[in-house]
């Protein structure tokens, strides 16, 4: 009897431990979950926005980052001379107020905004701008050296004027000056050493760094010296690394986070109808391709590339991978960018045409090839299986070559693949970055040789080169239209679909907006209580 009582009492210890901690836990979190209120129409100040993303930033130094998480967070801290409009088609002044171009088209004089202060209270001047822009290409190993490659020198004739001299008449320069990497920091790191400065960096953006717990969370608080009076409305923004899709969603639903970046495509429709959550698909510059490596003999043949392009049912891929939340691509460029040509006759699904093209090729009976896919990358595996089955009627036997992410990137960058899924987004709204990397080949190609495909069309190369040096927008548009037309007829890759940027966020979040380049700013964002 006594044994029974004591053992039962012992067994209840576990239950008591659970219950005690459970009740205690309720004190801290019950309020957050039960405090849903309707959104207010007038701006409310205060609050810290918790933004869940799949991974952490890598660096606070904008010249040293190539991952989107770092880029998009760094843009809250540093501001460049210009920035894109929300539709991604124009530029508006940011740290500059205007510019003028010399008669020989080689000297750009930027007039700086007066009264802008860094987050330490120091006034921003032309010396800061010069120092910041020069840092971008200071080392060959810097990721964004290529963007400023045409800059010959920078001078500062006055405290509020910066002159950028280019080697050639360089049309994309104004857009290049809107690149995050050209964001302004104080001259000579405000008297600090580089390492001390980057531990607590200073910028002119709406927010400044409170702390960065590497690999976990970047906490930003409002910049008290921000030049736009009365902004930002938020007290802070916390970028939290939450790798698991489900956990991000659960945190959003529980109210412990307000924005979920890139929810799984399978969840998008459900989230669209969930009370208290806004699900938005922002138009993007993301184009998904199937790349052909032209070092492989089969893919040197344009008819093979066209046959494959016609054989792929893009709508089926969009349905299977994006659950219908994408659009079929007709060009390398997305409709979100100003150089997009809606009339580009890019190959669309037509098995009859595909078979005709295959018959015209040097390999009418087909061949065997490999398609590189990332192991664990469910989207690529699904696309791979669809491509595999759709190329079978052409006699093309596709073997999926599964490799992990880092290996896939290396194999792509070293052109050690036969076919591979590739995608592109642009960091500036000027077409030059994307065209140079995804279409230009030959000696002028800056390392990627048409997105690693080794495509080299001299006419395309020439048109892209011309567009870099023609300063009329309409003339440039005409050149890029021609490029898109040639790429449709002689494709280095099969253009598959345009993918939006998916964000799920609390209905308490107002004015959140994602640009076609993928970045977001928070000076206008506010939270309703």
């Amino acid at each position, binding site marked *: 009897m*006594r*044994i*029974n009582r*004591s*053992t039962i009492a*012992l*067994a209840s*210890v*576990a239950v008591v*431990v*659970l219950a005690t*901690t*459970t009740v205690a*836990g*309720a004190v*801290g*979190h*019950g309020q*957050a*979950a039960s405090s849903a209120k309707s959104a207010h129409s007038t701006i409310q100040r205060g609050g810290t926005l918790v933004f869940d993303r799949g*991974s952490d930033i*890598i*660096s606070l130094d904008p010249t*040293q980052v*190539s*991952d989107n998480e770092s880029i998009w967070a760094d843009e809250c801290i540093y501001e460049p001379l210009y920035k894109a409009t929300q539709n991604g088609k124009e530029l508006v002044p940011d740290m500059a107020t205007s510019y003028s171009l010399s008669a020989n088209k080689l000297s750009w004089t930027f007039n700086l905004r007066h009264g802008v202060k860094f987050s330490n209270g120091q006034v921003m001047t032309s010396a800061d701008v010069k120092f910041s822009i020069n840092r971008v290409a200071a*080392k*060959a*190993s810097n*990721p964004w050296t*290529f963007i400023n490659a045409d800059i010959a020198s920078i001078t500062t004739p006055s405290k509020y004027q910066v002159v950028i001299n280019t080697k050639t008449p360089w049309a994309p320069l104004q857009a290049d000056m809107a690149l995050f990497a050209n964001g302004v920091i104080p001259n000579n790191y405000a008297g600090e050493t580089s390492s001390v400065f980057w531990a607590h960096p200073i910028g002119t953006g709406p927010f400044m760094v409170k702390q960065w*717990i*590497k*690999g*976990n*969370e970047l906490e930003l608080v409002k910049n008290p010296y921000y030049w736009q009076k009365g902004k930002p409305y938020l007290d802070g923004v916390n970028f*939290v*690394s*939450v*790798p698991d899709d*489900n*956990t991000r969603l*659960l*945190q959003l*639903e*529980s109210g*412990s986070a307000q924005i979920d970046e890139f929810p799984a495509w399978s969840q998008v429709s459900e989230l669209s109808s969930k009370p208290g959550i806004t699900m938005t698909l922002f138009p993007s510059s993301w184009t998904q391709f199937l790349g052909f490596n032209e070092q492989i003999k089969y893919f040197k043949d344009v008819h093979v590339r066209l046959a494959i392009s016609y054989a792929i049912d893009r709508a089926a891929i969009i349905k299977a991978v994006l659950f219908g939340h994408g659009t079929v691509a007709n060009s390398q460029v997305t409709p979100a960018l100003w150089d997009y040509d809606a009339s580009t006759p890019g190959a669309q699904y037509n098995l009859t045409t595909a078979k005709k093209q295959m018959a015209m090729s040097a390999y009418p009976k087909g061949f065997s090839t490999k398609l590189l896919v990332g192991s664990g990358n469910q989207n690529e595996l699904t696309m791979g299986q669809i491509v595999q089955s759709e190329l079978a009627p052409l006699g093309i036997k596709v073997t999926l070559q599964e490799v*992990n*992410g*880092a*290996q896939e*990137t*290396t*194999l*792509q*960058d070293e052109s050690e693949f036969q076919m591979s899924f590739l995608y592109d987004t642009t960091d500036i709204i000027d077409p030059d*970055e994307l065209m140079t*990397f995804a279409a230009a080949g030959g000696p002028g190609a800056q*390392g*990627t040789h048409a997105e690693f495909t080794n495509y080299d069309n001299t006419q395309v190369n020439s048109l892209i080169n011309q567009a870099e040096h023609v300063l009329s927008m309409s003339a440039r548009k005409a050149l890029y239209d021609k490029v898109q037309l040639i790429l449709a007829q002689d494709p280095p890759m099969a253009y598959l679909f345009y993918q939006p940027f998916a964000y799920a966020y609390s209905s308490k979040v107002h004015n959140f907006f994602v640009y076609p380049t993928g970045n977001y700013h928070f000076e206008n964002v506010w939270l309703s209580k």
Partner: protein
Amino acid sequence: MLVRYVGRRLLLMVPVALGVTLLVFFSIHMVPGSPAYTFLGPHASHKAVAAFNQEWGLNRSLPVQYWLFLDRLFHGNLGDSLFYQSSVTSLIATRVPVTLSLLTGGAVLSVLIAVPFAALAATHPGKLIDQVIRFTSTAGLGMPSFWIGTTLIILLGLVFPLFPVGGYGNGLWGHVDSMFLPCLTIAISIAPTLLRSLRTSLIDALGSDYVAFARAKGVSARTVLYKYGFRNATISAVSVLGINIGFLVGGTVVIENVFALPGLGQLMITSILDRDFPIVQGITLIFSVIVILVYLLTDVAYALLDPRVRLG
């Protein structure tokens, strides 16, 4: 005797840990994939890649790179992360408390769950309560930890919003509060094995001659259970717990991922995917030390619980 034994085991830890880092170093370098491309992004030119490799010494031979790692290690330096460009030691230092509290919290909770139920089952062998406990623990064995974690989050984070839905929290109470569900997930994963082992040992102990003798001498049932039953049954359970914790060290990544905990496991996976070699090396070293220490503590506990066991 015990001090000499522990000292010898600690010394042996050095070649074992280094052996593990050697294996990991060469195996991760054998897998294709360059950190330069991951760091520099898809637009990296070959010139930029070459400059990156030169800057970080990645263009040197593997034995030279490993020798440099050892050289730094013997000077108390684990090197710098290729991505974060800050010291590996400082990166790991912020993660160790998370992983250690996850492991210890999980171990403590698993004991708190397993011991009472094992006692209940062992004192009612073959009865309904015993059958229910055995059935439940068998079912628990078949549940993957990510599923347990997600279910707990939905149940106790969302449906009944009692705990944070992931994260490490702020301040001591915030940490305790945030770590409860992850620790409970680990406990639910370990407890079934521990419970079944403890139950079996307890039944054996309670059926032994010395227990019958104690009962005949009029020793109370409570004393019999605690002093004679548990003391002897715990010996095998300690081994089971030690082995499980050893396995868990490598398995924390799943729990850390589900609960978005900034621990060593999560950093390890990110670093393997990015090919951030110095971090992978550093964490491997820490993990191997933790596992060795857990096994050492298990052996010491074994000897303390059973005077017949002689360490040496």
